[in-house]
């Protein structure tokens, strides 16, 4: 808790720094813990309901615990026609989970995302923000192996 408070307090002087604080929290916890929402509301002088409303608005913010590595696959139109569906299936079968789920060991969370702005290399996958380009089903095991 002290830690959560410290992280949020770093942004307390920044007007509107709530979202920045959430990013910083996610960097450490991979999600925004419940007590962090309450603490952030207090520090930024907004209601808890509002702090929660903000946290649930943005796709990249999560109020539910997630894995250590967040794998996101783009399925916007350019990646879609480049075969995103097949890559999704490959990840699902490698990880043994569906999109939106976290592996039982808490290591990976697999999410769908919209365009991440790397359309020169569709299909695009990001793992904790790091992009992988021109991903094909065949490349999936090797990508995951980097995190084993």
């Amino acid at each position, binding site marked *: 808790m002290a830690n959560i408070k410290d992280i949020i307090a770093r942004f307390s002087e920044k*007007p*509107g*720094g*709530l*979202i*920045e604080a*959430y*990013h910083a929290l996610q960097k450490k916890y991979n999600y925004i813990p419940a007590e962090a929402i309450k603490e952030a509301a207090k520090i*930024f002088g*907004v209601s808890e309901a*509002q702090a929660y*409303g*903000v946290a649930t*608005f*943005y*796709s*990249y*913010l999560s109020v539910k615990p997630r894995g250590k590595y967040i794998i996101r696959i783009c*399925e*916007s*139109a*350019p990646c*879609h*026609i*480049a075969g995103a569906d097949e890559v999704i299936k490959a990840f699902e079968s490698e990880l043994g989970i569906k999109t939106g789920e976290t592996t039982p060991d808490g290591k990976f969370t697999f999410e769908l*995302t*919209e*365009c*991440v*702005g*790397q*359309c*020169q*290399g*569709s299909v695009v996958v*990001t793992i904790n*923000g*790091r992009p992988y380009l021109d991903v094909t089903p065949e490349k999936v095991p090797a990508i995951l192996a980097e995190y084993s």
Partner: protein
Amino acid sequence: MIKEMRIVLRNADKIDPQNISDYIAAGGYKALEKARNMKPEDIISEVKKSNLRGRGGAGFNAGLKWSFVPQSETKYVVCNLDEGEPGTYKDRTIVEKDPHTLLEGMAICGHAIGSNKGFIYCRGEYPYIVEHLNHAIAQAKEEGVLGEFDIEVRMGGGAYVCGEETALIESIEGHRGEPRFKPPFPGVEGLWQKPTVVNNVETLANLPEIITRGAEWYSSIGSSTYPGTKVLTLSGDIVNKICIEVPTDTTIREVIYEFGGGIRGGKKLKAVQIGGTSGAFIPASMIDIPIDFDSMRNAGFTLGTGAVFVMDETRDIVDVVTRIAKFFEHESCGKCNPCREGTFRCYEIMKKINQGRASSDDLEKLQLLGRVMSKACLCGLGQAAPGPILTTLQHFRHEYERKLFLS
């Protein structure tokens, strides 16, 4: 062979973007110095004269936009780097390859409107760009080139709608990224209710060269009503998936076949979607239009962000549009009724058509819904969301009809 013309990307791949001295050695920050010796109103009139028009999609004269900013103790310059349109990666490329051009452009804008605080709103998908920019800002501060002008980078959280300027402002303020109604426009009442100029990366990155070389030079490039260059990003079934900068009188055909190297696998072009995922689907027969704002609009299309998404003859238009409908369903902020419910129902009906469960009534419903959304939604997202549906219903109706009652 036509060539690129690089204004905003003039330093790309020529300098080390991590090193401010490279930028300075290439003549960087001279324009800012020049601007500082000009009266703010002279800068505004120069930019107005250059006819630089917003590169984010709205195409509004940048100088004119600045001239509406009223007197106020506090004003802000906000750079929109929330490049969320699928198929678009131009702003990332500009910043990745030459961050200081943007910083310099922002400082020029700041001087022109009398603001000493700028924000760059960078989309959450680009965390590395945030670091890259912070590095550049730190260097610029160390060099003292920005003077009193302070720039802060804020990162978005994964919301396409935050590309809309008022939603972006809400997000910087730490709120849900829901668009505001206009008026008041941000120029009058923006960030924290203060006058705020919101410009796209590409718009701001044009400024140093405009100040250096003058409005006359700039306005003579490309199309007469939308002069200068446009940075385009090529994606989809195209040989070269690259980022290019070309004069605005370049045609779509030239972009695809000269720069893009044509369609992959020697296939034929079926359609090209320009301007991002809300853009129109342009059939192969109509690609001789120049990529300037007005020519596109006159043909019933939009230039948007300059994404060029190419689909070959084998692509299933209905399937792609269904995917696009899902995008809008996912990205609608939910504030206004026609968008929140409309994007959801559009996707429902598109799915139904795509799965062969639909009848011609459903096409009528789509048409009606699209027509209302494009007129009644609160912000550009909802107004533009039915664009792909309406244009494909117009130009590719047969593909829809082929899928009716197939099951």
